[in-house]
């Protein structure tokens, strides 16, 4: 068998999970770990036997606590956040820690239909023997219900709204009716759903309030620490540049700090010194986009700018990230340029480049 590129969390972190499982405190039905141990698994710490647990998520403790407590009360969990805020990552590790299985995943796309959520039919069987349980092909959701595990639904809002609503009965009654067989699947204890959704991206559908009401929602914010975010971007840019065989000039870290600084100011609606309030653009300006901007800038620098990474080569990419709505975002950007960047001598190159391009 070939070497898998990446193992699911429950295999990759089997040792940590095993160590945490030794805690014999009370746990909800079907849970592999105690809720407290699940929190420790995600945020890092020490297991009862002294095993060091690495942090899977860096961020506010209360968010993870809320997520775990939600799952402990049988409520479905919805993780919302801009792209690149570790929603899927948290969802995978939660499933691995709670149910020991993170592989029951439904990937939501515009093409997802009801059959991929509830159940499909094996048509050969159906034709040969008529409707029967044997002719039914279970989905990850159905399997999770039967085995009392966690089903993960990725990118819930990319499915059509009417497809999303298939989940309503499952979530409120923990039952999946199969009218064709005049029967229903009743969820075993331990079953639950973790969905992830994007709130600010293009091409997402509204969630009906009936469905939304059935989830507890945890919003995962972008990194709140500047240095941490710069570090993430520098690291990821380095990786991408290497993969694309782009030479990385010496001043990458410096320019990354500038780009991340600009992103953060716009995202937070406040200049770094806190003195000026700003409008926020319609785009998400996530960490992932900052990475994209810098990598784009690197490519431009390498091919068209004699390898010099500067405000000019980054400018067009920056504008592309900031101005998503040609009208509103343009006002946002020019306001930012005039009220913040213009006054900062250190950023004059960016001010010039962006004003010229905008």
């Amino acid at each position, binding site marked *: 068998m070939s070497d898998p590129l990446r193992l699911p969390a429950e295999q990759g972190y089997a040792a940590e999970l095993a160590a945490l499982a030794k805690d014999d405190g009370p746990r909800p039905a079907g849970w592999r770990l105690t*809720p407290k141990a699940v929190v420790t698994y995600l945020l890092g710490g020490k297991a009862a036997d002294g095993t060091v647990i690495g942090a899977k998520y860096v961020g506010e403790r209360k968010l993870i606590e809320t997520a775990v407590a939600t799952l402990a009360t049988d409520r479905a969990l919805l993780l919302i956040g801009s792209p690149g805020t570790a929603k899927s990552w948290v969802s995978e590790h939660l499933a691995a820690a709670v149910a020991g299985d993170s592989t029951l995943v439904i990937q939501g796309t515009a093409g997802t239909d009801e059959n991929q959520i509830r159940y499909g039919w094996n048509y050969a069987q159906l034709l040969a023997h008529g409707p029967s349980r044997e002719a039914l092909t279970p989905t990850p959701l159905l399997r999770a219900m039967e085995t009392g595990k966690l089903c993960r639904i990725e990118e819930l809002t990319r499915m059509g709204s009417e497809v999303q609503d298939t989940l309503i009965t499952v979530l409120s009654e923990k039952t999946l009716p199969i009218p064709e067989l005049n029967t229903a699947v009743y969820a075993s204890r331990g079953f639950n759903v973790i969905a992830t959704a994007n709130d600010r991206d293009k091409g997402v559908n509204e969630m009906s309030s009936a469905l939304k009401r059935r989830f507890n929602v945890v919003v995962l914010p972008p990194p709140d620490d500047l240095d941490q975010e710069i570090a993430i971007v520098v690291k990821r840019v380095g990786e991408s540049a290497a993969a694309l065989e782009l030479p990385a000039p010496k001043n990458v870290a410096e320019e990354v700090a500038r780009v991340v600084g600009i992103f953060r100011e716009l995202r937070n609606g406040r200049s770094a010194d806190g003195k000026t309030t700003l409008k926020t653009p319609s785009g998400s300006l996530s960490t992932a986009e900052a990475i994209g901007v810098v990598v784009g800038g690197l490519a431009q620098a390498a091919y068209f700018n004699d390898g010099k990474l500067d405000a000019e080569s980054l400018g067009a990419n920056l504008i592309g990230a900031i101005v998503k709505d040609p009208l509103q975002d343009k006002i946002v950007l020019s306001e930012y340029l005039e009220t913040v960047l213009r006054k900062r001598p250190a950023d004059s190159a960016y001010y010039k480049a962006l004003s010229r391009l905008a």
Partner: protein
Amino acid sequence: MAEEAKSKTSGGAHVFGVRHHGPGCARDLLRALEALQPVEVLIEGPADLSPLLPMLARPEMVPPVALLAYDEADPAQAAFWPFATFSPEYQAALWALKRGVPVRFIDLPSTLALAARFPEAPPEISETSEEPPAAQADETAPAETEPDPEALKLRRDPIGALAEAAGYQDGESWWQDLIEQNPAPGPLFEAIAEAMSALRAAAPPPDAHEAAREAHMRLAMAEAVKAAEGKPVAVVCGAWHVPALLETSAQKTDKALIPKAPKRRTAAAWAPWSSARLAFSRGYSAGVEAPGWLKHIWESPPGRADAAWIAKIAAALRAEGRVISTASVIEALRLSTALAALRERPTPGFEEMREAAVACLCEGRGEQWGLIAEELLIGAEVGEIPGDAPLTPLIADLQRQQKALKLKPEALDRELPVDLRSENGLARSTLLHRLNVLDAPWGRLEGAGKSRGTFRENWRLRWEPDFAVRLVEALAYGSTIAEAAAGRLMERFEEATDLSDLADLVMQALVIQAPAAAARGVEVLERRAAETGDALGLMKALPPLADALRYGGARALATDRLETLLRAMALRAALGLSYSARNLDSEAARDFRDRLRAAEEALKLAEIDAETREIWLKALREAADHAETTPLIAGTATQILSEAGILDAEETARRLETALSPGGSAPGGSARGAGFFEGFFLGGGAQRLIHDAPLRAAVDGWLMGLEEEAFVESLPLMRRVFSDMDSAQRRRMFSALFGKGPSGPTGLAPAPDLAAIWPEHEARILGILSGGQGA
């Protein structure tokens, strides 16, 4: 039986260390008092004000109220001792009063408290300092030494500090958990006293003022114990002081610690207080973070605060227009319980409920919680005091000022012209403006608004008796008229929704000479201005701001901050201008035109800096250039640009011609032309037609080319435009039109270098006119 909640004793005195404004504490204190049945209750508070205590039991007295002591000569020097329903001190006093048990204060007298807070008594600046200097004299250190905030927090709220150390954000949740975890509430106050001894052992020794206070309390305690003859005496004081009160110290040493009473005269009164003033976040340094939450705890049965709190959150969200189902409320409660279990706390506390509410009721959005947080956490309560309570400092302050300014309150109308250049006149005007802010409009400004920037105001005075009542209510905002007016304005900043209203309020703050309030208003305005995308709203706020700038100049006030703001707002308005000027219907367009002209006037008046001016004009040019700009606005913008010299005569005429040409700005050719025409000429542009031949030709061409119907339609517009001219102007216009040449001196044209040499000419002419000294 005294097992209930044992206190630390010293002789016959039982010392109960409480958390100021701690509802949990208050509840346990009542149980302890009931068990102890003391013969006298001693409370930490200014000893000389004990006679005011019985008033607390009056039914007309509704907390929050504050005991307030002020310097008779200068009411701005005041100290407050606020009491909320849930304050242990209030509950203890009430307990004693209802049972006829003697109760009194035992802390240093108010004269000394004031002396510690205001070391000398000089300040004439009290007129303008509206921020009560970190009131609540009881737990704050003297003003001159600025202790580090950590130490201050420890002294003021040691129990909160302990809770924080235990990982709680909210001291009351910690307290509840503590009680909950000890089902037989054992010697609770004894445990607090021990904790405090440990805390104080590690803290620096008390400063002189604190030592004096504790010595005073010890002495009073000893006296009471002696008088009680072996029966129990209850002492209620801040937890921090317990170890010191239990210390044995010779009376002589204690007496030596107390400074001599200063020679100032203080008066004291009850004042209605507000929950906002109890809170930290309104800029008062001493208080509690969330009076709304504390009151909720006090009103709920012990340990049952959670369900009702979540219901309150849901109700507040519903009031904001969100749909919250009962099922979600139940889920929020379940989640909070699960969170508490996860954190190994016996009951959901404040934090668990907040997080559960965010996840279940607010779709995970912290911002939605933020919308209701202030209302929930702070509340909008205002206390009441009996009508026959001692004269409140605001009335005393008013009487003092009336005397000083020689203004008598009369129930008859009386005219009062005021010259702002004289000291007395300025003071009179300021007083009347302040009273207006406090809803006690003793004077009404005649021709309001018009007099801004001049040195004269005409007031009509008439005193109504209910103004006195309003001044009592206004006490919740401050203890002098100046302070209270500023405090009231600060509150109105938060309430104002409109940028121009806000700008007006900033103007008012300047008028009543409340620089701190003005600064705050500017801050709020800055924030709101950044949030709005509405160029119209921004433009609306420019004129009052420019007025404020000019007026501030007349009154010699620091206005540089205002100038920065005006610049920022002009900038933001400019950036959005061209977008918001598109596709407006006729009514919106007229409004926009008026705002635009007013904003332009305001910017000229305020003499805005060249850079901003340039951006503003650039924006106007963009609006004038863009094809989708509403014609009326395009016309107005073109006229302003032409006046500002950005467009020369030739270019202006060209633009007018293009806009007026029949197919030029199709669709809707002639209607669009009429719009542009109106925008350009209405409001003072018509005179230009007399001198400006190319312009005249453009208009002429347009009118001649109109179909009859369109021409008739445009007649009312013509009339409006030309009715601005007087008959002489019209005559000159006719002669210009019919080729007779202007009736003025012929053949004259403005000198090409006119703009450059004019200022010099002007100066000379003015010199001649004003005294014949033209050089």
